[in-house]
């Protein structure tokens, strides 16, 4: 394992990230609507939400790439976008923001230089990144010859060559195969193990559950819930279990029926209703009620509530819609 010692000369006691009442609009669209968040040192905050929830705009705002309409963001006590904040921050955008005709090493060198690295610091940063991303043996290969997973890993490494104390990972697993996704998870876990604060956006619930100790669920530009996975589930379901009930066809007044029995009908054509039950035997009462009201139930699932259940409970929509 290559050992790389970061320069901590600019260390500060301020918390890594403080977001205070941030609002950002694009014309009539409010992308971020009054979001406030604090992220403590060494934490991994998962921003979980469907496409268009405002996650990427919030991440870009933290990176200093968005002019806020109101509110403020501070990175280790410095205003987002300031030179001091940029030095402490590594941003991995959702796109493959690389030079396709340059090699892995040349890409890392370019982005390292853009971060002000020179000499030994630059060489050490490149060496650490190549090893961290498992690309040491492909250091001389041009980006366009790499597989999709390798490009994703290099894309992540290019944001970390200056060894920042906080990293913004904007959906880093988009479009990669399961093996590459696992490798990326390991990379993030390695970062966390080294004490890096991580902000991780995703619309994959399992990624947030595996990697993040704190989760902020976003929808329509707002943070609608925040806490650990257990806290979020407890808050939404208590000790109850999650019951998914699928009907034979779309149900007239299904939403009203589900609401009358303490549940919600998921938006969409499938006609799936969600309920929270204190005991598994409570399912029988629900089935009886459906039978009395002429609803043909074709599928019933009992499961422990997860983040997806929380999201459905809070918004009535599936996370991936």
């Amino acid at each position, binding site marked *: 394992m290559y050992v790389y010692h970061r320069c901590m000369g600019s260390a500060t006691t301020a918390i890594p990230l403080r977001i205070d009442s941030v609002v950002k609009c*694009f014309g009539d669209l409010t992308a971020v609507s009054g979001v406030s968040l604090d992220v403590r040192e060494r934490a991994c905050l998962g921003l979980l939400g469907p496409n268009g929830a405002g996650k990427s705009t919030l991440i*870009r705002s933290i*990176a*200093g*790439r*968005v*002019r806020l309409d109101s509110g403020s963001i501070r990175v280790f006590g410095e205003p987002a976008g300031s*030179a001091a904040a*940029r*030095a402490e*921050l590594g*941003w991995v*955008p*959702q*796109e*493959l*923001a*690389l*030079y*396709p005709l340059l090699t892995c090493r040349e890409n890392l060198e370019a*982005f390292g230089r*853009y*971060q*002000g690295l020179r000499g030994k610091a630059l060489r050490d940063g490149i060496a650490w990144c190549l090893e961290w991303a498992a690309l040491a043996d492909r250091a001389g290969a041009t980006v366009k010859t790499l597989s999709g997973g390798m490009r994703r890993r290099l894309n992540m490494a*290019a*944001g970390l060559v*200056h060894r920042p104390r906080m990293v913004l990972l904007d959906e880093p697993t988009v479009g990669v195969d399961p093996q590459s996704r696992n490798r990326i998870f390991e990379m993030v876990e390695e970062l966390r193990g080294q004490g890096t604060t991580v902000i991780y956006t995703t619309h994959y619930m399992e990624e947030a559950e595996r990697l993040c100790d704190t989760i902020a669920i976003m929808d329509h530009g707002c943070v609608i819930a925040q806490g650990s996975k257990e806290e979020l589930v407890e808050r939404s379901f208590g000790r109850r279990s999650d019951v998914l009930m699928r009907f034979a066809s779309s149900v007239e007044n299904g939403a009203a029926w589900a609401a009358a029995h303490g549940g919600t009908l998921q938006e969409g054509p499938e006609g799936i209703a969600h309920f929270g039950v204190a005991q598994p035997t409570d399912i029988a009462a629900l089935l009886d009620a459906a039978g009395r009201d002429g609803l043909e139930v074709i599928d019933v699932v009992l499961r422990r509530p997860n983040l997806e259940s929380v999201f459905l409970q809070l918004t009535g929509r599936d996370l991936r819609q």
Partner: protein
Amino acid sequence: MIAAIVLNGFRALRRDRGALILSFILPVAFFSIFAAIFGGMGGSGTPRVSVLVVDEDGSAVSERLVGALLQEPSLAASTHPAGKKGALVPPGYTAAGAEAAVKQGDAPAALIIPKGFGAHPVALGPGADRTPIRLLHDSSDPVAPQMVAGILQKVVMTALPDAMANVGMQYFERASGGLTAEQRKSIESAMSRVPVNSAGQSGPQRDTGFVALDVRDVVGEKKQNSMIAFYAAGIGVMFLLFTASAAGGALLDEAESGALDRILSARVSMTTLLAGKMAYSALLASAQLTLMFLWGAAVFHLELFTHLPGFIVMTAATSFAVASFGMLLASISHTRAQQAAVSTLIILTMSALGGSMFPRFLMPETMQKVGLLTFNAWAIDGYTKVFWRDEPVLHLAPQVAVLIGAGLVLFLIARRFARRWEYS
């Protein structure tokens, strides 16, 4: 089926602005430019040839010839340097002054009427007794001396009919001695030997017209194919503009890939980024020009190594200007396709007007002035000063000032447009 394919083609074309520009606007623009150059849209029809006239003879005959030359509509003849508005008319050209003016490129030709011209102005046939007019010219313009020589013969015929008649009578006396039938036949025989206008002939001596001409190339006589520099600059600048456009386009690639966002989230400001891109583009352009001139030196005997200071100054100024032009094109375009279309349109237009495709000195006067709105014209003028006229580096000040100044202005405009990439 075929109709559906045709319909799809037109639908796609309608939404592809770049292709639309290349398909319709570019041909019309080029047609208009070349029509203006060759069709005299500038208002003057066939371009008039500038010629400086020096009367060293001062006789009544030479004064009449000068007067006729000044009134000749095909010539833009002048006997004095252009004075400032409201100032006194400066002294007339001397032979040395006219030669210097031709060397500097103020005019492509000069006519020096020597002392004694009035005594023997015209003659019929080669080897006759007459005083030749000196025609000094700059062979970078191969057309002007031919036109001046021909028009001079015409002017002599119309302006000096008495001299013509006198010479005719002398011929008559010598040839016949009396007007017998045989003598008349003899006169007709002699007259049949009178040559026609010799404007189309070439060579250092032209003594077969009514007026003898001593023709001398005062700029290119000692040079080894140095007009190659003109073509190297003309073609070079055009391709430099394309290269700078492509180099600037990398900015759009980075914007589309997200790399630009990432760079700007690091410790790189937009001004630094643009300056860096421009420096790369300028260095690339310098390398291209250097290669072209080295090739010219190796293959076409271009005198590069005896003109290095001027070459370096002009190459630096030209490269700076085209690089900033590339940045501007990138910053005003929203997509790479749009940039490619706009670049092609502007660069080909600039190259046509600026003399990269057709020498400006052969264009109508108005079009020559319009050409000064392009980088090509200023760069070509500068390189011509260096390699053709052997002018010192200080004389490049106007060209360098325009290229650098325009480059700075374009860079500032590009920086202004680039603000859209700074924040969302």
